[in-house]
């Protein structure tokens, strides 16, 4: 009985000590895990540091805001993996390794980002666009990467382009909150943005008229919703410009050659490249001899005998007449030659 009691005592002691150890370790990890230890200092609004240039920089992290962010459920130490304990706060002015590797979770985005011009030619990393402590999802209208906010986000560096875009037919529609209106990323892509000169770039000149513009302007759903037609794309592909472009000609005009890039405006806008007063200049970029009459004609036309445009009707009838002519003449020739061949072959039969 005594022996048993002794055993029990030892067992309980062992159990308790193990439990205690677990508790200790659990306590420490919990202290890091819920970020309370970090926020005990960084939750203070007056916490600042002075950087090498002498600027005062706030080190405040709002717990409330952070909890609302998309990363609200993870701990400081999940991202700030280089900060192991609170020793970084001991010495004043000690450089803290704040390096955060988003790619440890966002592997796919990281992989694409590595090939982007922002990574290769500049030091624009995740946080420049997405923010850091208060990253919100793409769907959140307050997010820096929300569709309508991208103009400002990208505009922080690309000011001129953003300004032009904001005044364009695309930008105006976008700022009115219309769905499907393009924003920066619709054409340029997201993580893997490449320079225009890169053949893999979404806005490379070989892609402009194949994917960049037609992704919306040849899309049935979008064209139906906004009551414009896919005719410009179709007719472009069948025009000299489009045919030569499809064959790899880089001197041939693509969509952007006439309509502009960021500042695409409707033809009714006097500032538009395709406004009737500016057309001679627009055409003249490639056709220096272009007359006023040269620029007056309709460009995006398709042959159609029932078409609204007179020229379309005429070309449609030319087409119908020629097809009739070709079928009858060539068909007649084939028939005649076939009978001729048949007769001569039969005559030669031994």
């Amino acid at each position, binding site marked *: 009985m005594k022996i048993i009691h002794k055993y029990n005592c030892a067992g309980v002691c062992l159990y308790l000590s193990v439990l205690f150890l677990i508790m200790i370790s659990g306590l420490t990890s919990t202290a890091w895990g819920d970020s309370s230890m970090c926020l005990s200092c960084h939750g203070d609004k007056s916490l600042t540091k002075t950087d090498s240039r002498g600027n005062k920089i706030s080190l405040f992290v709002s717990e409330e805001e952070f909890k609302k962010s998309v990363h609200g459920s993870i701990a400081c130490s999940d991202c700030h993996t280089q900060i192991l304990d609170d020793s970084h706060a001991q010495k004043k002015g000690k450089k803290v390794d704040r390096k955060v590797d988003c790619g440890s979770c966002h592997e796919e985005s990281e992989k694409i980002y590595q090939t982007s011009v922002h990574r290769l030619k500049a030091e624009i990393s995740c946080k420049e666009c997405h923010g850091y402590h208060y990253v919100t999802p793409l769907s959140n209208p307050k997010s820096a990467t929300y569709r309508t906010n991208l103009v400002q986000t990208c505009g922080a560096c690309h000011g001129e382009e953003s300004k032009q875009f904001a005044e364009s037919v695309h930008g105006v529609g976008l700022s009115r909150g219309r769905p499907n209106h393009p924003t920066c990323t619709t054409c340029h892509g997201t993580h893997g943005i490449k320079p225009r000169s890169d053949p893999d770039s979404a806005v490379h000149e070989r892609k402009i008229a194949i994917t960049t513009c037609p992704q919306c302007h040849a899309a049935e759903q979008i064209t139906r919703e906004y009551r414009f037609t896919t005719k410009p794309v179709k007719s472009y592909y069948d025009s000299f410009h489009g045919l030569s472009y499809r064959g790899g000609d880089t001197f041939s005009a693509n969509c952007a050659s006439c309509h502009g890039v960021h500042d695409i405006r409707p033809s009714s806008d006097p500032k538009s490249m395709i406004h009737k007063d500016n057309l001679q200049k627009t055409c003249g970029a490639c056709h220096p001899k272009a007359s006023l009459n040269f620029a007056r004609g309709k460009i995006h036309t398709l042959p159609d005998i029932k078409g609204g445009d007179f020229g*379309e009707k005429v*070309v449609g009838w*030319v*087409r119908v007449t020629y097809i009739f002519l*070709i079928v009858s003449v060539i068909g007649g020739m084939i028939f005649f030659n076939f009978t*001729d061949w048949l007769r*001569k072959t039969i005559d030669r039969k031994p």
Partner: protein
Amino acid sequence: MARKYLRMTLNERIQHLNLAINFTILVITGFALKYPEAFWASPITDVPLGMTFRGFLHRLSGVATVTLGGYHLLYLAFTERGRQIVKDMIPTFKDAVDLWETLKNNLFINRPAKIIKMGRFNFREKFEYLGLIWGTIVMTVTGFILWFKEEWLLFFPMWTFDVARAIHFYEAILATLTILVWHFYSVILNPDVYPMNWAWIDGHLTEHEMELEHGMELERIKEEEKRRLVDFQEASNAGGGRIYPLHPESSSRLNVRRFYGIVQDLNESIKNWKGI
């Protein structure tokens, strides 16, 4: 040895070759623009500046073809043979009849088949030649409109340019198919001439070919030759209108006897050499 009849002079053969090469270049470089994704267009579209070079070559060949057309007009106007070609090329009612009768022969409606004797240019050739002239005029006019669009659009609205584009394209299809179906049947696939009518290379037709395709012309030639010989007094006396070659072997190949004679003559001349 079968007699041969001159069909195309060297001049005409060079004209034909010139047209054939330029036409082929025009067809390839032209349709490569309309069908840039086609597999056969890849030698043009895969090369850097391929499309630019394509356009240049198309215009170059176009100018060459138009120049050839101009030369051909001069040839027709200022040579004896050319003027005769124009006269022989005029379509007549007989051509329509020939076509109709050929069709009836082919379909076994004429039993037995009628022997059709056609002139120097039969209905197939007249149709093709006149079609070629028509096509060249159309392609030249529309082609120059497309080339000099700035000048054209000084005076005409844009839709006329679109019409010119459409005509240029459809006329090209018509011309190409005509060559493939009509011309290539006449000179290649036709069982009478298969594997090829050699006139475009050696310039001659055999008597058999003449009989089949230009019976009337053959009769005319024989008639004329006979008349000439009759007019030639000595010949008519010697053969009573029938002519036999004086030296039958002279036209045949070099035989041993003739070769020996040549050597003997040479020996004689050396033996009798007296200096200059």
